[in-house]
């Protein structure tokens, strides 16, 4: 079996959550694997990261370079190509960095590429079968990957349970001298932090969250009226922000806000994994969607197949009636 590597991201001296997940993937591909962590960066924080990782990974390859202080995918690709042995299997998280790095890395290594895997179901010396989702999560697919000349694989964050094994006393191998000078056609300038909106959806116990099913900007008021009678806030999924119906600060998801409400009303939201990644704290999820195949029904507690444009106003009226009765 090919040697398995896991590219580990980190920020502010903290190892990314994906580290343990990628270790679990490596063991699922090959139960006898002795996976190696790949870490790039610069300065004292890089040593902290390597120290933390060697309790999980038997070997940690450290690549220190001043121009890797910020993770630039093109520079990191060039660095990895200098150190990776031919035919390796390389695991990378399927996040904004992995999407930047992994496809090009597979071309340069002349290896197979499979992205965003959720499971590994079969393996042999030269091929493995993995599970992916297509059509926004409405169906899954088994995909066969010929890794006879190696493979680059991106892994959906949160899909694999982190493995829990006794802490190791792994070794850190400094590969920095093998890398040499690096230059890229893309140069990082700065990070612009998201603006805070008028409404802070992260502070609310109840969210009335709307998706593409709201259909047009004028209908957003329907959700706002329900939110008003509930004392809730209106949040949304990506298509609503793309269409400029609500501002970016209302978006729940990996590229939006992470929320922890008690109750989450998912209205006309299909339930793409990028959206679900922003819902934490195990809220009670009520999903209303016209499409009975919408993936949101797989994760919701309560599901209703209905048109939100009719359901929400009736729900608002019902609550108003209840409130006027109790006020008398």
């Amino acid at each position: 079996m090919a040697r398995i590597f896991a590219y580990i991201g980190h920020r502010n001296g903290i190892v990314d959550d994906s580290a343990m997940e990628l270790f679990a993937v490596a063991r699922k591909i090959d139960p006898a694997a002795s996976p190696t962590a790949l870490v790039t960066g610069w300065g004292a924080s890089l040593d902290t990261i390597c120290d933390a990782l060697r309790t999980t990974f038997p070997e940690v390859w450290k690549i220190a370079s001043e121009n890797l202080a910020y993770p630039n995918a093109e520079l990191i690709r060039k660095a990895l190509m200098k150190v990776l042995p031919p035919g390796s299997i390389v695991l990378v998280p399927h996040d904004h960095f992995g999407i930047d790095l992994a496809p090009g890395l597979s071309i340069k290594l002349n290896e197979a590429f499979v992205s965003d895997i959720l499971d590994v179901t079969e393996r042999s010396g030269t091929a493995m079968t993995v599970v992916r989702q297509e059509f926004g999560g409405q169906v899954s697919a088994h995909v066969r990957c010929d890794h006879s000349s190696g493979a680059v694989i991106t892994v959906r964050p949160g899909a694999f349970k982190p493995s829990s094994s006794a802490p190791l006393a792994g070794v850190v191998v400094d590969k920095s001298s093998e890398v040499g000078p690096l230059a890229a056609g893309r140069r990082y300038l700065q990070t612009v932090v998201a603006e805070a909106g008028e409404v802070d959806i992260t502070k609310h116990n109840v969210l009335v969250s709307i998706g593409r099913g709201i259909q047009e900007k004028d209908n957003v008021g329907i959700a706002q009226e329900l939110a008003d009678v509930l004392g809730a806030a209106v949040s949304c999924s990506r298509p609503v922000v793309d269409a400029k119906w609500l501002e970016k600060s209302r978006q729940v998801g990996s590229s939006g806000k992470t929320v922890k409400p008690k109750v989450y009303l998912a209205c006309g939201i299909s339930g793409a994994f990028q959206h679900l990644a922003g819902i934490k704290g195990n809220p009670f999820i009520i999903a209303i969607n016209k499409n009975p195949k919408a993936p949101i029904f797989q994760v919701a507690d309560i599901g209703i197949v209905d048109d939100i444009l009719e359901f929400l106003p009736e729900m608002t009226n019902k609550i108003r009636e209840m409130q006027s009765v109790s006020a008398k």
Partner: protein
Amino acid sequence: MEILVCARRVPDTSENEISLNSTGNDIERDELIYSVNEPDNYAVEEALQIVARVGGKVTVVTVGGEDDEEILRREMAMGATHGVLISDPAFAGSDGRGIAAILKGFVAKGNYDLILTGVQAEDGAAQVGGMLAAMLDYPFASLVNSIEILDGKKLKISREIEGGNREISEIDLPCVLSIQTGINEPRYVGMRGIRAVASVPIATPDAAELAVDPGSVGEVGAKVTRVDYFVPALGKGAEMLSGSREENIDKVLELMAAKGGLK
């Protein structure tokens, strides 16, 4: 500026309930509504806005068969100068690398300053743009949500990263960018606009014309192949309420009260 946009015709996930066919080797395609892949449409709009500012031409290219011509017409109706349908029976069953190799053959025939793709298509792989860039040795950026032309040689771009933050970089031309939805507001295209471009010729180069090695594409070149589709039995799933709308609302309110969601 010469801009190439790589686009694809896909089943529209917002308009369709996707289900399996009887043998499970594909989805049921009989009643599907197809449209241009949504991020690709944003990429075309972005290209059109760039040439409106600095001049140039926009070419939209797709790899496929005659059914795929409709999306080229649609994007030409938006304002793209040329539509190109790369088509060859040898391309059937190509994986992402195969598609990138075909596009590389096409890019080599032209002189493009900027190549745009949508961030991902219906398979969610987000792979072709990054692969094409690596094959061409061009710089690449994914998840791009703004583009500013600095001069003839470079761009200032931002990428969508976690938490709604934006990563700003400078990138040399020529380069490949994968475009995220929401970067702009794509213009509306009516039937009249599509009719207006109905007779504009569309080039249809094949493998030989693009000097694409048949062994590197199609099923023979694919290292990654889909075995089947399935619908996973996931956990317990939602408890589906099947009463009347009024009954369902009462039930929801009762449950919300129990979970502390009612004032």
